């Protein structure tokens, strides 16, 4: 029989991902439809990673709400948010509680709009995100898909912009992606873009909603795009914004891996070449060259080292591909989401590289990762900071990347993507391996 209890979960709930995605839309505030605790806990969780003010409202269910439905609370919440935050968009995400009592968000919202007919109110969007629909990453995808469903207009046009759906990446990654698209000289719409809202400068005055994000009006134009690029090989089609636009608006979709490592980054840049009609700018050729050269510099230190990696499914897939490229092996791979075909993709990847077959978990918790690590052993953990305890108990170093990073500063600034991000990850991992070797050595070598 399968286990009943989940220990030290690697995944978080759907509304967390949705809230994060909505942070990347300009002048938007999120409200979770449910009780107060969920919103507060998620704020705390996100704040500990981004170290920025993050407001997520709650419709604050009471016992009466749970019995009679959340319509009234929702309306009151919308009123209060409108007056305190003056947002352009209010994004309402359901929670387990509102879903379980069968509360109909869309009905409440259309009633609200009726009630307010003739008065100026913000745009309102609702997403259905009970936690049993998936983990945080699925919540993220659901939110992005819902945004384009709600706002996109028109039909694909060859002169339209490029849509980029990067998924859950760091603020630094988002800024990098923008600079890449800029270099390709192609108009684009990136959804979402929390690079400024979740890593902004200091403030002179309080901003109820931090500046930055994809403008709401830009979302309409995702429908006339010439093409969409979405990072994700194992996204459920129903949760894929690019797939939706392909089906409804005829926008060609490229579903490609998260660009980490040479192979995955090559796919990204090739796709960009095709879609923009601009050939790869020199700076990227140079960076790719440097990356290849750096692989050479690092190869001996990392060769045969065995990694335990965990995180969101697509993230794990790309990291796995990168580590195999540099001659490392995979001992354990724990995917936290509900990706479609995650395991098969990983098995194919390992076989194609003649690698050691790792223990693979889908929808894993840290207890499973721990047990697997105990069985397989390993030289390095690669993943978010939540693996720290296991890494410490095994006395195996941890390289912190991905989300969340709760015990270091700068998690929001880690650059993972493209040739340049890969260079950074390569240095990080190689140096950690060197550091371990150095500290275990009886001689204090100052050349390695």
């Amino acid at each position, binding site marked *: 029989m399968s286990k009943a209890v989940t220990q030290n979960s690697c995944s978080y709930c759907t509304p967390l991902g949705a809230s994060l995605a909505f942070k990347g839309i300009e002048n938007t505030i999120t409200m979770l439809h449910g009780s107060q*605790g969920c919103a507060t806990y998620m704020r705390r969780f996100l704040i500990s990673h981004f170290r920025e003010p993050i407001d997520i409202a*709650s419709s604050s269910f009471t016992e009466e709400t749970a019995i009679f439905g959340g319509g009234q609370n929702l309306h009151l*919440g919308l009123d209060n948010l409108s007056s305190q935050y003056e947002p352009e968009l209010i994004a309402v995400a359901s929670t387990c509680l509102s879903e379980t009592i069968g509360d109909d968000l869309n009905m409440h919202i259309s009633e609200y709009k009726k009630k307010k007919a003739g008065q100026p109110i913000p745009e309102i969007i609702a997403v259905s995100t009970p*936690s049993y629909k998936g983990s945080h990453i699925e919540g993220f995808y659901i939110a992005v898909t819902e945004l384009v469903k709600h706002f996109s207009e028109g039909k694909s046009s060859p002169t339209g912009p490029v849509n980029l759906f990067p998924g859950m990446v760091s603020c630094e990654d988002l800024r990098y992606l923008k600079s890449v698209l800029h270099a390709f000289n192609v108009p684009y719409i990136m959804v979402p873009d929390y690079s400024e809202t979740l890593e902004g400068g200091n403030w002179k005055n309080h901003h109820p909603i931090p500046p930055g994000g994809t403008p709401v009006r830009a979302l309409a134009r995702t429908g006339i795009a010439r093409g969409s690029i979405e990072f994700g090989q194992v996204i459920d089609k129903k949760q894929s914004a690019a797939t939706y636009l392909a089906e409804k608006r005829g926008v060609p979709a490229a579903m490609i891996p998260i660009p980490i490592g040479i192979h995955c980054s090559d796919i990204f840049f090739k796709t960009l070449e095709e879609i923009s009609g601009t050939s790869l700018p020199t700076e990227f050729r140079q960076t790719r060259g440097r990356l290849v050269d750096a692989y050479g510099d690092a190869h001996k230190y990392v060769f045969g080292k065995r990694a335990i990696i965990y995180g969101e499914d697509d993230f794990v897939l790309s990291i796995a591909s990168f580590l195999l490229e540099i001659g490392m092996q995979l001992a354990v791979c724990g995917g936290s989401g509900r990706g479609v075909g995650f395991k098969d993709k990983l098995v194919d990847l390992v076989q194609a590289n003649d690698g050691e077959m790792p223990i693979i978990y889908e929808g894993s918790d840290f207890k499973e990762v721990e047990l697997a690590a105990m069985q397989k052993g390993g030289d390095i953990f690669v993943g978010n900071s939540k693996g720290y305890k296991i890494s410490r108990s095994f006395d195996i170093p941890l390289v912190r990347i991905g989300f969340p990073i709760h015990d270091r500063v700068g998690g929001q600034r880690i650059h993972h993507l493209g040739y340049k991000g890969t260079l950074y990850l390569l240095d990080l991992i190689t140096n950690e391996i060197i550091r371990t070797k150095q500290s275990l050595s009886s001689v204090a070598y100052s050349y390695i």
Partner: protein
Amino acid sequence: MPAIDILKARQTQVYEKGRDHFTIECNKKSLSGAVSQRACVFCGSRVVLYPVADAVHLVHGPIGCAAYTWDIRGSLSSGPELHRLSFSTDLNEHDIIHGAEQKLERSIRELAAKYKPNAAFVYATCIVGIIGDDVDAVCRKMTKELDIPVIPVHSEGFKGTKRDGYKAACEALFKLVGTAEPEAIEPLSINIMGEFNLAGEAWMIRKYYEKMGINVVSVFTGDGRVNDIKKSHRASLNVVQCSGSMLGLAKMMKEKYGTPFIRVSFFGIEDTSNALYEVAKFFKNDKVYEKTQALVKREVGGIYPKLLEYRKELQGKKAAVYVGGAFKAFSLIQALRVIGIEVVLAGSQTGTPEDYDTLKRLCNEGTIIVDDSNPVELSRFSLEKQADLFIGGVKERPMAMKLGIGFVDHNHERKIALAGYEGMINFAREVHATVTSPVWSFYRKKAWYE
């Protein structure tokens, strides 16, 4: 009511001393759409019970409630560390439609077999309250089957506020109290309540009392053990810290076992000393009293000169204080005064009407007092009142720092001991480090190109 736009329904929860004359409304449910800094009933229960380190804490519900609270507090244990693990029944759609009693049962069984805990606490979260699992029945059954107390904690998030969570936790603990007898009954004995051993604070405080010749039977719940809790009804006195969280248990113990209680705070020089003297007075024992005097003299003498040094540099600075319980706010106001800082904004998530009366008394004219506040209010008032320092929890930290206001974490998640005498020095050091840091000058000055 001060002159920023506050949500109408919140106007009775914001008060400016010297200008307003009304009773602050509190213990209300949070307002829909206001970004409350509060968590939920479950949070209250978990805060109180969590440090019991030889029990498993199983969160019955969907994954979030457990995942977000995994190891978020700095409660230390000198032995087992079961409290630092996160266990969830991770309810899925099937469980929600068909009920999850079986899954709960299996989960408890798995955990008992694997970790051999001395008790299990089963937290019922929101969904459980809706799908109607009979958690009590499952717990009864498992108690029999496993021969350890398996205790339900009714902490459905929407059924009240954090205070109701405290109450549920006290009820859960009360089920353990009195279920075992100590070998010997010590006359000079106390329980310490509402002390959660963040960064080892309970150990420090326990040591003070032991030096006074007092026997500490049980600490609720810092570095807590099931067996100590069971025997705690034989202590002569309950020493209750922190406004709301454990007063309920003290009252229940008084009613059933006749154990008297006193309310104290271990934060700041004055309050810590009072907490020790009050206990000494209670026992009317000369030896104890003498030892207490000597202890206080030694400890205060040890840190006072250093505090004065800090005071010299901090004199005249202004602070905003927003914490969970109002009692903590009282202590903070006094402790800050010791190092020369006045409070210009004070508030709590869970204060009672009496608490707010006390706050009004303690504060200076012009101080703003808030109940269940939100980031918009907190940041605007901090700016308006020109606070140099904000004392709060993780959620307030980035808000304050973004505006160039120093910050000290005084929440359950901190890793620095702030209680007792040593804690006071740590506190002063923390305040000093953040208030006098040169980094804020870059926030205030214009950039060269501006």
